[in-house]
C-alpha cells in the first residue's frame, strides 16, 4: 500500500460555482519516498498540500495517508512554506521546539526532559549549519538561515510526512542550491516521506525520487517521472546529460499543458 494516495480527487472552493482547483487528480507516494509536484502557476499545487494534510476536505474522491482515509487535519505532519513564518518573540531554539509543545508524547514529557529536548533541537540546528544561533531572534537571521530554522521546526518531532510548499522560492540561487543539499542530507539520514511543491524543475529533479507533473487549472496529474540518479546527488549531477534531458522533458510537458490551459481559457472567453 502507498503511504500517500490520492484517488481521483477533485477540489472546489466554495459552492457549485466556486473555482475548481483540482479535477480528478490521482497519485501514489510510497513510504519514505521523496516526491515533487511541479506544474504551471495556479495549477492547484498548494491545494494538493491542503488536501493531503487534511486541512481542506476534497469535494470528490478519496485521500488516504498511512492506509486510512483523511477526514480532518492530520496530526504529526511537518510543514514549511516559502515564508519561514518564525515567531518573532521566540529565539531560534524556542522556535524550533514549538511542535514539541503541541505533539504528544513530547508535550507531556517536555516539562521533565526540557534539557534533553533542548540538546536534541540544538543538534538538529547544527546539522543545518545553525550551530551557535540558538539564542538569536529570527529577525537577526538572514532569509536563508530563517528557512533553515523553519526546516528544523518542521522536522524536530520526527514526522512521518514532511510537506514543503516552495520552501526555497524566495531565496537567491546560491542559497537555494546549498539548501537542496541540506534537505537531501536530512532526508537520507531520516527517510521521512516528503512532498515538495515547487516551480523549480531543477530543484524537483535534484531532490525527488518521483516527479508529478500537473496540468493547468483545474489541476490533474498528467505525468509521473522516476528520477533514478544515485544518491547523494551533488550540484555536478545537475549538469549531467541525463539530468538535463529529464528537466527538458518536464519543461516541454509543462509548456504543453500551459498552452492547452490558455487555449481553454480563450475558448471560454470567446463563448462569453
Amino acid at each position, binding site marked *: 500500500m502507498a503511504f500517500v494516495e490520492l484517488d481521483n480527487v477533485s477540489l472546489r472552493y466554495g459552492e457549485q460555482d466556486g473555482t475548481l482547483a483540482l479535477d480528478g487528480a490521482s497519485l501514489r507516494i510510497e513510504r519514505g519516498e521523496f516526491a515533487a509536484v511541479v506544474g504551471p502557476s495556479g495549477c492547484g499545487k498548494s491545494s494538493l498540500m491542503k488536501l493531503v494534510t487534511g486541512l481542506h476536505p476534497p469535494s470528490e474522491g478519496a485521500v488516504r495517508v498511512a492506509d486510512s482515509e483523511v477526514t480532518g487535519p492530520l496530526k504529526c505532519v511537518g*510543514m514549511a512554506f516559502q515564508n519561514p513564518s518564525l515567531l518573532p518573540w521566540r529565539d531560534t531554539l524556542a522556535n524550533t521546539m514549538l511542535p514539541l509543545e503541541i505533539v504528544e508524547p513530547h508535550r507531556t514529557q517536555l516539562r521533565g526532559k526540557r534539557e534533553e529536548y533542548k540538546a536534541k533541537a540544538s543538534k538538529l540546528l547544527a546539522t543545518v549549519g545553525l550551530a551557535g544561533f540558538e539564542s538569536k531572534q529570527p529577525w537577526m537571521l538572514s532569509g536563508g538561515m530563517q528557512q533553515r530554522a523553519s526546516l528544523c521546526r518542521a522536522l524536530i518531532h520526527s514526522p512521518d510526512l514532511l510537506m514543503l510548499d516552495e520552501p526555497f522560492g524566495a531565496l537567491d540561487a546560491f542559497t537555494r542550491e546549498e539548501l537542496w543539499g541540506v534537505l537531501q542530507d536530512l532526508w537520507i539520514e531520516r527517510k521521512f516521506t516528503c512532498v515538495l511543491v515547487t516551480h523549480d524543475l531543477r530543484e524537483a529533479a535534484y531532490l525527488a525520487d518521483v516527479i508529478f507533473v500537473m496540468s493547468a487549472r483545474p489541476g490533474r496529474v498528467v505525468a509521473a517521472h522516476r528520477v533514478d540518479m544515485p544518491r547523494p546527488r551533488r550540484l555536478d549531477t545537475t549538469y549531467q546529460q541525463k539530468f538535463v534531458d529529464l528537466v527538458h522533458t518536464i519543461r516541454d510537458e509543462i509548456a504543453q499543458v500551459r498552452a492547452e490551459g490558455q487555449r481553454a481559457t480563450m475558448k471560454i472567453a470567446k463563448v462569453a
Partner: protein
Amino acid sequence: MKLRRESRANLERAMPWFVIIGLIGVWQVVVTGFGIKPFILPAPSAVYEAFMEHRGPIMHNALFTLTNTLIGFGIGIVVGLALGMMIGSSRLAYKGLYPLLIGINSVPKAAVVPILVVWLGIGQPPAIATAFLLCFFPIAVNVATGLSTVEPELQDVLRSLGASKLDILRKVGLPRSLPYFFASLKVAITLAFVGAVISETLASDDGIGYMMLQASSQFRVPLMFAGLFVIAAMGIATYIVFALLEGRMTGWATRGQQAPMTGGG
C-alpha cells in the same frame, strides 16, 4: 562618535522636560507681560500657590479619582480582553458584536452618566462605570486586530500538528496580539481618567471633577488649573508605567535599528 551618540540619547530623554518647562515659562511671561487677570488665566506661579495652599484636599480628591480610574480600568482590561478574544477568534462573534460595540462607543459617555446615577447612585459607582465604559473599547478592538494578524501559514503548521484552537490562541494568537494590547492600554488609561472625571463633575461629592466644579462656582480659577495639572500628572505617570511595561513585555515588536544584522546564507 560614541560620545556624540550618548549625548544624543541624553537629549532625547530630556526633551519632554524641555518642552514642558519651556511651555510653562512662556505661559508665565505672557500672563505677567500682558497683565492677564488671574480669573481668566492664572500664571503658573499662582497655580502653584493654589496647589500648595490646598494640597491636602487636592491630594485627597486626586486619590479618589485615581482609585475610581484604576478600578474602572481594571474592569475595562478584563472585559476588553474577553471581548477582543471573542471577536478576534470567531467570525460569527465578530459579525454579531462589532456593530453593537460601535454603537455603544458612539454614545457620548457624558450622556450616559445620568442613567448610571439612576442605577448606581452618585459618587464612586458611576465614576468607576464611566471609566470602564470609556476604556474597554480600544482594548477590545486592538486585541481583536492582533489576533486576526496571525499568518494563515502558521495556523496551517500548527493545525497539521494536531493543535487545538486553544493551543493556537496560546502559542501564537495571544503573543502576537500583545503589542496591540499594550498599545491600547496606553490609550485606555487616559480615557479612563476622562471617564472618571466626567462622572465626578456630574454626580459626585468627591474627586477632582467635583473639586473643579466647586472651584468654578467660586471663581477660584488658579485652583481649577491646579486640579487640571494634577489630572495631567496622574495621566502621564500611569502612561509611563504602561509604556515601561510594554517595553519589557514586547521588546521584540519594537526592535531598534541599532540591532546587529548577521549576514550569510
